[in-house]
């Protein structure tokens, strides 16, 4: 049986959303650009498919021939090793052909527009683009400009969204604490610049999490963040009180230079995760981080490597979740869903 069961009906009927670029007329995943705008049933379907791939993996069926004959291009306009590698592995485990294209700033400054580049790649019969780009909205732009049989997966666009990262986080949370409505979750750190945080906020709210908190200094909180359905805390000790899940975000070093925070030392003393602080959360709290960790800035090594940490599970879940997203979004040459 195919790990992605096309016959299984989602728990709730998927409502047709006219104009939703991410869904096809049947309400199936067409592009995976953002968590925002996707119904709960689609998110649940991705998680369920990922689970079936994890099971397959445990049974040592390393390769599944689901996407045999399909070509996936990893289009990375920003340097990335970890994310690109997991996308590549995911594609290969589904038997797809993979094309890795790293576009440095220099080649895009040769005058070739992004559209020209896409047309060229389409001519090579690429069926799916996995896109990482420094500009918010890049994945949407590409999705609006591809033919009906090509799908787009967003692997991170500017400060907008990083939906597969959020879904692997949801997957990891579900493995440990499957009842989302009963959960209290806190996201800590640079919310302003984080595409991961935006995707997580939408995913957690769509999956119906009980309470969602963001914890950050004012300088790292985007304007109007409370409208995204979160409670804002500036004091971490108050913010992590009795939470079930803590998600730490990575702090980019360049934030110091543009006066967002005074120093790593002061940031750590105010927002760093230590074992003492962790004791304020629920006794069975899990702690997550999208990686790579700045040890001693976002968290102590004792926490990163401690019993509450699920950080390495996040990494291995990343492959199954990306396999799920690829399998569900892939199109046949006639534009119909390939899954």
């Amino acid at each position, binding site marked *: 049986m195919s790990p992605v069961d096309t016959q299984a009906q989602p728990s709730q009927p998927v409502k047709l959303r006219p104009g939703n670029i991410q869904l096809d007329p049947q309400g199936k995943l067409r592009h995976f650009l953002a968590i925002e705008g996707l119904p709960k049933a689609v998110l649940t379907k991705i998680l369920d498919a990922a689970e079936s791939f994890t099971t397959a993996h445990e049974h040592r069926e390393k390769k599944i021939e689901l996407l045999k004959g399909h070509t996936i291009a990893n289009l990375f306009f920003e340097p990335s090793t970890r994310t690109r590698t997991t996308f590549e592995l995911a594609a290969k485990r589904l038997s797809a052909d993979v094309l890795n294209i790293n576009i440095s700033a220099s080649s895009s400054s040769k005058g070739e527009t992004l559209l020209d580049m896409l047309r060229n790649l389409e001519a090579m019969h690429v069926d799916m683009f996995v896109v990482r780009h420094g*500009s918010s*909205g890049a994945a*949407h732009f590409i999705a609006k400009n591809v033919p009906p049989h090509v799908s787009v997966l967003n692997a991170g666009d500017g400060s907008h969204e990083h939906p597969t990262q959020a879904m692997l986080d949801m997957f990891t949370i579900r493995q440990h604490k499957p009842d989302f409505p009963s959960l209290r979750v806190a996201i800590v750190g640079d919310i302003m610049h984080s595409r991961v945080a935006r995707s997580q906020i939408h995913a957690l709210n769509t999956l119906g999490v009980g309470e969602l908190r963001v914890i950050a200094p004012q300088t790292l909180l985007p*304007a109007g963040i409370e409208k995204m359905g979160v409670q804002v805390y500036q004091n971490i000790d108050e913010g992590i009180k009795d939470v079930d899940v803590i998600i730490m975000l990575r702090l980019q070093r360049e934030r110091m230079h543009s006066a967002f925070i005074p120093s790593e030392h002061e940031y750590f003393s105010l927002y760093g995760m230590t074992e003492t602080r962790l004791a304020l959360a629920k006794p069975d709290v899990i702690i997550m981080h999208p990686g790579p960790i700045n040890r001693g800035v976002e968290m102590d090594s004792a926490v990163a490597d401690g019993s509450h940490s699920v950080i390495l599970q996040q990494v291995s879940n990343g492959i199954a979740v990306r396999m799920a997203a690829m399998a569900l979004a892939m199109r046949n040459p006639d534009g119909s869903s390939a899954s």
Partner: protein
Amino acid sequence: MSNINKINRIHIKDGHLIDPANGIDEVIDIWIADGKVQAVGTAPDGFTADQIINAEQQIVCPGLIDLSARLREPGHEHKATIASETTAAASAGITSLVCPPDTKPVIDSPAIVELMHNKARQVGQARLHMLGALTSGLKGELISEMLSLKNAGVLGMSNANQPVQNSQTLRHAFEYAATHDLTVFIRPNEPSLSKSGCVHEGSVASRLGLPGIPEAAETVAVARELELIAQTGVRAHFSQLSTARAAEMIGRARHDGLKITADVAVHHLYLSEIDIREYDSACHLIPPLRSQRDRDGLRDALKRGVINAICSDHQPHEPDAKQAPFPDTAPGLSGLDTLLPLVKRLADEKLLTLSEIIACVTSTPASILGLEQGQLSVGASADICIFDPNMSWFVSADTMNSRGHNTPFMGWEMHGRATNTLVNGQLVFTAIHD
């Protein structure tokens, strides 16, 4: 068009004349000869018209004066030209355009002014006016040769979208402009706050992950400029306000006695950050579309006369300039084609009367610029817009005359369209009827 035989004597018949400067708002005829208004209401003795324009059911008003329109020539002729955009202006009832100095090369020498005037004389369908660079090369370092520029014909000084960062330089530039009785045009922006932002800083920017431009980028600049205006006594005009708070500050300062005026781009009276939806690059504008509260505040400021004039802030682009991820696209919209119907719609929406709103695009900008146009007194230049207020049309690539089709109003239904446009008594545009 320009090859129409010279017709010197025109009688505009049965039109509803709205001439705000003269308080006329009634069906009344107007007679034109030798480029001037010869008579209003009563035919001059022995007048024989070369042409009679039947303006029944139509509005006759002074030709529109657009306080900010980039024609892209010289420097960016792949986007548009003086010929293409003055033709588009004429077809939209606009008879005078004011071009900011950020052409390439910059309008900071009499030679460039002359070059553009010559070009406009050869191919222009509407009058082309210029603002000279406030600082040499718009670099904000040296003040420009303002007197030479004034003598060459610029109507005021501006640093366009490149704010003068050094306050002492700005102060000297204001003092120098005041000495030579020149108005300075200011598009307020504090660059350390706007930085690389491309949309209004607020919940939409946060949701889309787009770098924001805070309200304070405008208000901090307005505060500094107001202080320097007060100190130097320069006559100043604030261009394209985008925040309600900046309008409030300007209203208070004028109440306190400063010689200042302000305009708003018409799209800021209709659109807000919400219209960006999923990265619609047609809504990538600088200053950015602000909150709905700002939009309503700007409308209110216009109603109360705090904002005096309305412009198009026309910035045509070639299609490629808008075909990229949102932050990487070029900002600006093509606004000439939609200026008249959008302005008229403000009257339909009862924000102001039609006569009051027409003043915002005719007599008021004329007085800000020190032009004799913008009114139709006997003896005035016959720059006239005749439009059918009820003509319905849809904004599309086919209905737009500007070379740039970059507009967030694409697909909107408009009511009102120019049927005839006269510049200096010459018919430069006549709509082709079905």
